[in-house]
């Protein structure tokens, strides 16, 4: 209660102070009054001193901005999609925007004539347009190297626009985008655990889940990451054509959520199926929920398509191995966003 009273008191005090200030700031009596020197006859804005230094500075800043933007394009062109240095791309586009902003700030402060005047609001404005046009013309009176500045601004703007358009290249066909679809999985490649030990089919238990990786592939490669679960074979309702993909009821799905690329870290597994929700693989980021018994069909959440399934086989030594490649593209994908399975 005491706290509440204090808060009310503070609020009242603040309001009172603000209000007093507003009263103090009563508008000046109407009428035009020049703070700086008045304009020459025939001009609206007073003539300014030319400032060649500021002009060259602006041109230089714009060129630097253009160089940064060009750097973005070069970076995009030089690196392959897997090795694309995001930080460098960010520095390039960010640098271009920063230098452009600084250039504009210099223009505003050093090159455009500014005047301070107080004017009462005009009741009629018949010649307003002409006045504004003249205002713009007159404001440029300090600029002597007009062409240089326009050229520099054009270069910077053009380079930035080009940099903005560069990512369109990723759509192909100029670029080889096949690398995005290749995975380490091919028939016979074994599944290993986090320590690199091959996974033995008979050791995979029900009611739990396993993280698996592709033998010999780097663990940073998103297509190498799997989540493995075992369900009773009678429970499975896999899509047509995948009947042999889950030997002994062991299923492997891509661990990367098809919504935003987080790792599937949650496995919901009922203890008593009669009263509890059915088994599901869940992504912790936005709770996309996939049904492992039905080919990881989306049960809930923002994911647009099922997790890609990896066909499995059990090799001669009882180890789990891939029987082929994934059923679909790995990772977040916006293709097929509307093709949500029922």
């Amino acid at each position: 209660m005491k706290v509440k009273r204090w808060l009310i008191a503070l609020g009242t005090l603040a309001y009172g102070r603000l209000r007093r200030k507003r009263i103090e700031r009563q508008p000046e009596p109407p009428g035009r009054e020049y703070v700086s020197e008045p304009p020459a006859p025939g001009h609206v804005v007073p003539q300014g001193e030319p400032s060649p230094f500021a002009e060259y500075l602006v041109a230089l800043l714009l060129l630097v901005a253009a160089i940064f933007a060009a750097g973005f394009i070069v970076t995009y062109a030089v690196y392959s999609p897997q090795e694309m240095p995001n930080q460098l791309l960010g520095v390039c586009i960010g640098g271009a925007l920063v230098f452009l902003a600084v250039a504009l700030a210099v223009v505003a402060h050093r090159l455009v004539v500014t005047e301070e005047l107080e004017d009462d609001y005009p009741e009629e404005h018949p010649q307003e347009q002409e006045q504004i046009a003249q205002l713009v013309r007159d404001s440029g009176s300090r600029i002597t190297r007009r062409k240089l500045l326009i050229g520099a601004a054009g270069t910077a703007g053009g380079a930035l626009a080009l940099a903005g358009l560069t990512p369109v290249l990723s759509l192909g066909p100029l670029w080889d985008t096949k690398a995005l679809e290749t995975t380490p999985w091919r028939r016979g490649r074994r599944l290993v655990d986090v320590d690199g030990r091959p996974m033995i089919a008979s050791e995979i238990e029900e009611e739990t889940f396993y993280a698996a990786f592709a033998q010999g592939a780097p663990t940073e490669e998103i297509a190498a990451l799997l989540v493995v679960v075992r369900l009773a074979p009678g429970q499975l309702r896999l899509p047509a054509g995948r009947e042999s993909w889950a030997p002994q009821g062991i299923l492997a799905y891509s661990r990367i959520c098809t919504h935003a690329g987080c790792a599937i870290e949650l496995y919901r597994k009922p203890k008593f199926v009669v009263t509890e929700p059915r088994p599901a693989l869940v992504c912790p980021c936005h709770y996309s929920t996939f049904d492992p018994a039905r080919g990881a069909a989306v049960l809930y959440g923002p994911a647009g398509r099922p997790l890609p399934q990896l066909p499995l086989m059990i090799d001669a030594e009882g180890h789990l191995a891939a029987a082929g490649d994934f059923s679909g593209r790995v990772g977040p994908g916006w293709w097929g966003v509307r093709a949500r399975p029922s």
Partner: protein
Amino acid sequence: MKRYSLHRLTRRGSARSIATILAIATLSAAATAFAASQNGIVRPVAEPAHATVKLGESLFNANCASCHGIGGRGVAVARRGAGGVAGAGPALIGVGAQAADFYLRTGFMPLANIHAEPSNQRVQFTSKEVTSLTAFVAALGKGPQVPRPQPSSGNLAQGFKLFTEDCAGCHQSLARGGYVTGARVPPLQGIDATEIAEAVRIGPYLMPRFSSRRISDGQLDSIVRYVLTTNRPDNRGGWSIGNLGPIPEGLVAWLAAVVLGVACLALARRLGA
């Protein structure tokens, strides 16, 4: 509301022996279920001084059998009994002392509603009754014993690593709990070492189960040690912000930044004026 309980019914007839009570309890499972649904736990009128399998059996028949079936055989389809209770529950033959001890000591069982998620509630049975029920369930069939974790021999760093890999997806890295679609994930503070170990081995409700092949007893000691440390985490910087991780921390940081920014602006305006 009129109260029906064995206690009341049997107080009048003083000559009834415990055996008769047990017989009535077994035969009128539906009626006792009705009583249980309205009044909570049904107890025999004269409980023995020490925990016995027999006491466990009578408590089971009166309080558990409507869902878990006669002799713990389970009820697969919810059927309406005489008391109007529609119960369905898993069989308890072979679950062992481990599961009974866990579900009863955490207050997960008995459930008020079979579709509800079991959660840490006030324990309904006395410790003598829990011991008796656990002994009875353990006697139903060969099953796992109550684990005896040794958190002091665990390795905290290993426990943190294993917890991050296998548990933090649902429970959060500082075991503050969270959500999975369709259920709440409980926080793990204030739970004793045995309960933690039991939960890992059983996988209650929607939690996955981790056998000793998946997580060895030594590794489990480390995990238990880590979970126990989350009761009083080392809060570097002093303010834990709920130990929920980067999102609330970021929120607080942004809020502080906004307040600071507004204060700076106000100060600047004041100085400018």
